[in-house]
């Protein structure tokens, strides 16, 4: 009998663990990654000859509830046709009862991995602004994500941004959809999904920081809003996602989640505690950006930006050198920002004045 090294055992284990998608049009190639709920594999769509990502849930689904939920996620995402939202191609079940779905293969890095690269502060802000745009689009369609975090955001090689994992997304009620310009048939589809939400959403609990797994509160503690941590699902609206966006911005500014050490569990997040101000961790962070972050992360939702779009707009304003709504500047800051924004003109004027002085003294002699 051939002796198997530890490495060989691990490889055989990995092979034996690969899901058997026989009977479907997908051939699994290898594992890409895993999380609390499922494992993602690289697979080949044999009909279309393209590579896709297949996510297989870790648990079997004897009641079919998980399959219903996955189908619901696929339908929600199908409604959100946006370049920053990853489309789901297919949902199915394996012979062993596990549910899988196939989605577009996203090549890139997770946002939390991107921050470790040499991405500049302004690059990260531009990425963040794109995230805000995608989330704002979903909000406009009456969908809130409920689990926004750096791990659920992918950044492609050309700077494209993708918001992933809409598995716990919520479709808002009629009243919330009133301003939605969606046509009638899409409205009825949203209703169907909303109904499915009531019967099919599996209870999920937030586990350790950065992990979403099974239990009673949906989301990830380090990034969730206070009302979400308290399980006040009736209070969850766009502003809950706005809080999570603020928490993501916090991560981008400081390199750590806002509640890493003291709010890693849901229980700890149920009592409000302000996060350490980003500038206390790094004095180089501009006050305006800190203000955007802290406004989005306000304890009370009425103090936050009303929409994700509002967060994105303020970020764009900052990038363009304009005043942001979250921060009241004093006269020196206004002057500094004006000078900074109009640096080229100021330099030209200064150069002109210096030349005039030189000419004046030269002629005077």
């Amino acid at each position: 009998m051939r002796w198997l090294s530890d490495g060989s055992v691990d490889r055989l284990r990995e092979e034996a663990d690969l899901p058997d998608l026989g009977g479907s049009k997908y051939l699994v190639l290898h594992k890409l990654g895993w999380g609390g709920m499922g494992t993602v594999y690289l697979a080949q769509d044999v009909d279309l000859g393209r590579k896709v990502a297949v996510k297989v849930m870790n648990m079997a689904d004897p009641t079919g509830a998980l399959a219903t939920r996955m189908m619901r996620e696929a339908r929600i995402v199908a409604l959100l046709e946006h370049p920053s939202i990853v489309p789901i191609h297919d949902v199915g079940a394996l012979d062993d009862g596990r549910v899988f779905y196939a989605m577009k293969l996203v090549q890139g890095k997770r946002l939390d991995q991107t921050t470790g690269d040499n991405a500049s502060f302004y690059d990260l802000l531009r990425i963040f602004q794109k995230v805000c745009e995608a989330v704002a689009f979903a909000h406009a369609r009456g969908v809130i994500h409920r689990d926004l975090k750096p791990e659920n955001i992918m950044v492609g090689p050309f700077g494209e941004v993708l918001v992933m994992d809409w598995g716990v997304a919520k479709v808002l009620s009629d009243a919330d959809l009133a301003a939605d310009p969606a046509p009638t048939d899409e409205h009825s589809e949203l209703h169907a999904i909303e109904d499915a939400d009531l019967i099919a959403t599996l209870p999920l609990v937030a586990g350790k920081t950065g992990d979403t797994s099974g239990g009673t509160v949906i989301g990830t503690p380090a990034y969730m809003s206070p009302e979400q941590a308290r399980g006040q699902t009736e209070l969850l609206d766009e502003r809950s996602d706005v809080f999570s966006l603020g928490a993501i911005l916090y991560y981008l500014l400081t390199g750590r989640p806002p509640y890493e050490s003291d709010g890693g569990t849901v229980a700890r997040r149920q009592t409000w505690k302000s996060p350490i101000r980003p500038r206390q961790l790094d004095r180089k962070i501009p006050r305006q950006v800190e203000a955007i972050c802290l406004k989005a992360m306000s304890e009370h939702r009425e103090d936050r930006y009303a929409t994700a779009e509002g967060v994105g707009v303020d970020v764009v304003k900052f990038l363009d050198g304009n005043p942001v709504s979250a921060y009241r500047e004093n006269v020196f800051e206004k002057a500094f920002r004006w000078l900074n924004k109009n640096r080229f003109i100021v330099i030209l004027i200064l150069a002109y004045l210096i030349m005039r002085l030189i000419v004046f003294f030269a002629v005077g002699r």
Partner: protein
Amino acid sequence: MGSDRFPVTKLSAIVASSSDDQEERTRAFEVLVAAYWMPVYKYVRIKWNKPGEDARDLTQGFFAEAIEKNFFARFDPSKAKFRTFLRTCLDGFVANENKAASRIKRGGDATILSLDFDGAEEQMRIAGPPALGALDDYFDKEWARSVFSLALESFRAQMIAAQKQTHLRLFERYVLDAEDEPTKTSYKSLSAEFNLPTTDVTNYLALARREFRRIFLEKLRELTATDEEFRREARALLGVDPQ
């Protein structure tokens, strides 16, 4: 949609080991000895710090006594996993043997099982001694190695019998031969190496992988007493939650 996470195709050797049918019992013991002798021997060598000769005697003695007294029949699956039960029995056996001052050296003159102890020694030499903190898991790890080895052996035999040598060679090349390479061999390079279209490489590997998984689970089913234990072991070895 099926609710069973894993197929149940083979009768448990643990259950069969207490059968009234002598032939069935013998076959069951053979299966259990094949899966457990190596972990038992290595465990006695490492955990009990026994020299090779003593460990051989103790391994032979342990299985001889298990067959003679049929103590696998005492296993209660509601209390523990079989491998935990077996390890506890083994610890008890070795402790008793240690206590017996006038212990009759077992097996030395009359080997009852043909076991490749030299091969086991060679494996231990290659692997080196386990880290101090890894001693507790040593038996479980060796047991997992043994199950995978047996499954692989059976997989080889079945693939050859089914005239699927190319599938087998591809699988071994992709999974086992590339151990020292930092990343797995790509399908494209396998395609060039085996002179096959990449789609064939993908399909052959998919089939081989499916067969290996089936055989591995069959082997595991054989080595567990109940469906519950089977699922638990599958979860432990493959890392999925079958629920």
